[in-house]
């Protein structure tokens, strides 16, 4: 029996639980230490902030399980927002579908190049990171031109509407996560995603359409990044051009914290959601402290992430 793989099961359980345990601990401590943390307002805000990242990270989860990586999502996120804002002048439908189509198409091209030419996902998606960012700057006059969305439009409602004070994006992200979990675990496409990342050569011999699967996950990742951008634009009522820088790294981080193997073949949507929760709670707490210079915020959250990852490692032993 192969010991490598025997540990893999243990890793899966412990890593996921590790992240969950860390999240519960974080929440409990924050609740006690910061009186405002547990307020309904703050929790709503936290969930809303997390929902945008969760949508992006959902696509990233699929990509990473196939053994790939998608660096373009940060740029596509920003591009999606600008396209949505620009499209909102033509009505709700254009505002919503334009970013999905364009970002989905870029994702599709990513997948096509990766699957058919065997180029490294890292390189291909790095190229589209630059491409999408460039496109964004071109259509906004180097970012000087920020498209606004009419405050009374239906599209803004999508980003700002609430149920019991919880924003629509939270429900959209939750629904997508449930759907994503079902697709991953209960459909042939999901099984193919696991097989592709787990042992690509074998997957080919088993008749798994590896190339199609890869194209599928990158298309999905691009589309979801575009959707996250559209939701953010609706929430902010404008297509902000400076967002999304480094968001791809956040997405990768939460996926990995959630127990998805960076080498592929194993992972869960639930883990990713927990990962998003963890990173957002950390950021929220830093904001609560309030005295921290914004530059130091990312230093602290970086250190914190490192601690979480190291803890997971130790837990695995």
């Amino acid at each position, binding site marked *: *029996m192969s010991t490598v*793989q025997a540990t893999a099961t243990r890793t899966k359980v412990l890593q996921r639980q590790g992240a969950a345990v860390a999240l519960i601990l974080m929440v409990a401590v924050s609740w006690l230490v910061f009186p405002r943390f547990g307020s309904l307002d703050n929790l709503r805000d936290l969930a809303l902030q997390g929902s945008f990242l969760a949508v992006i990270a959902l696509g990233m989860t699929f990509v990473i399980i196939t053994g790939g990586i998608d660096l373009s999502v940060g740029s596509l996120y920003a591009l999606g927002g600008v396209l949505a804002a620009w499209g909102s002048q033509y009505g709700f439908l254009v505002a919503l579908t334009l970013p999905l189509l364009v970002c989905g198409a870029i994702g599709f091209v990513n997948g096509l190049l990766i699957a058919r030419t065997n180029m490294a996902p890292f390189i291909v998606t790095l190229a589209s990171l630059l491409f999408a960012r460039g496109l964004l700057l071109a259509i906004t006059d180097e970012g000087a031109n920020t498209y606004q969305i009419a405050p009374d439009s239906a599209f803004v409602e999508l980003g700002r509407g609430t149920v019991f004070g919880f924003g629509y994006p939270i429900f959209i992200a939750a629904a997508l996560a449930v759907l994503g979990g079902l697709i991953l*675990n209960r459909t*042939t496409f999901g099984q193919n995603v696991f097989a592709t990342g787990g042992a690509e050569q074998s997957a080919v011999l088993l008749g798994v359409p590896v190339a199609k699967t890869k194209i599928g996950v990158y298309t999905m990742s691009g589309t979801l990044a575009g959707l996250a951008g559209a939701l953010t634009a609706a929430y902010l009522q404008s297509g902000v051009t400076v967002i999304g820088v480094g968001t791809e790294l956040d997405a990768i981080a939460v996926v990995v914290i959630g127990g998805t193997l960076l080498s592929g073949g194993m992972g869960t949507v639930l883990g990713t959601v927990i990962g998003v929760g963890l990173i957002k709670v950390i950021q929220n707490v830093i904001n609560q402290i309030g005295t921290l210079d914004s530059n130091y915020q990312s230093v602290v959250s970086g250190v914190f992430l490192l601690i979480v990852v190291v803890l997971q490692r130790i837990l695995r032993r």
Partner: protein
Amino acid sequence: MPTEPVIEVAGVTKTFAGVKALDDVDFTLNRGEIHALVGENGAGKSTLIKVLTGIHSPDGGRIARNGRISTIYQEVNLVPLMSVAANLFLGREPRNRLGLIDRTRRDAEAKELLQGYGITADVSSPLGTLAVGEQQMVALARAVEADADVVIMDEPTSSLEPREVETLLDVVRKLHEQGIAIIYVSHRMDELYRICDTVTVLRDGVSVHSGPLKELPRIELVSLMLGRSVNEIQKHGTTAFGEDHHADTLPVLEALDLTSKPRINNIDVSIRPGEVVGLAGLLGSGRTETAKAIIGALPLDHGTVLVAGKPVPHNVKAATRAGISMLAEDRKTEGIIPNLSVRENIVLAALPKLSRFGITSRSKQDRIVDAFIKRLRIKVSSPEQKVAELSGGNQQKVLLARWLCTEPKILLLDEPTRGIDVGAKAEVQALIDELAKEGLAVLLISSELDELLDGADRLIVLRDGEVAGELEGAQLTREHVLNAIAAEVMDDADGNQNSH
């Protein structure tokens, strides 16, 4: 019975970077027949299969397929991280009314199905946690359940225990009764003659013979495969092991009380220089685990390993330094580094010995590598060829060469001749013999009883992780070993169990 071809291949050629793997090959598979495909390592058997199934496209020639093909490829080709049930049903999962995969039903069906193949493992655990033999049975079940007209098996028994081999052969017979045509690749002559109707012999990518198997004497089949005359072959026996080795010195290896629950329990093994000790037992009896425990790759509850009377710390590095080397059973996950060259793979373990201040002499490396390529007859286009491009049997030889060139005092061999053709097998066996004569202590694990009986001076029989008996001298017969292995059943009936 009218013969009706289900697969017809005419003049197929396939070249890899200048190497002709298939050269104008004709091959016909008729409905309902069991067709043996034989040849030396690197003869082109796996390549022909991959051309048949469409994995490789041929450079020239015609292929006509008349039915669905289902294949078990040579290396276990499943996904280790996915569950056993997911692997079994990948691509044809049972669904519920919503069109979603019905996992409960899938797992239940998988469990029931696998019981028919003697596998009782938890079907929801990752496939990689199963032993290689069990994984092979899962691959078999998968291929058989796919409802095909043709089932191709590329060395399906190379990692199976005798009992599992019987299960597999039963399955083959059942398929045969259903009228399914089978292509069967194996280096084990016994199996071929037991089940196959026809045979095609490949040699260096050329099909040199095709016809009924039963009428072809064994020795002639071997001579066709190797391209040597019958006389030449008759000089050597079926196995190439020589006389027993007389060793009356002190043990060079003593492993005492090895325990790693629940897999092995209080196992003692001692080997003297020049002695070949065999480990016999069924799948899961703890043979591989015992070897791993000796080399320090299995965490122990307790137990000690002594080399020349000195205790060795329980880790692989220390064990290697003390002179223990191990050839692992599962070459894909625990041995071969596919993207490195043959040379790099061979010298890998010996590098520390070959280098001074971190610098290795290339000419020394080349000399050693050349010597082993010749001695083991490894079929390569050059020492710089990637190991991934070698045929299965040749990869096994590369691994063997890796451990031999570390010049160990104690060599642990887990299925050393698995997937190796008859010619090379004899050479490997002769080599083990020769090394033992030079004073090497060898621990030999093999599922082939003949190999153990001929090769080992002494046999330790394991059952359920414990030593069930030790056999020596006149006791080294098939009956004794089978009795010891199956003693659970025999215990009451047969009072005179083997003891030591």
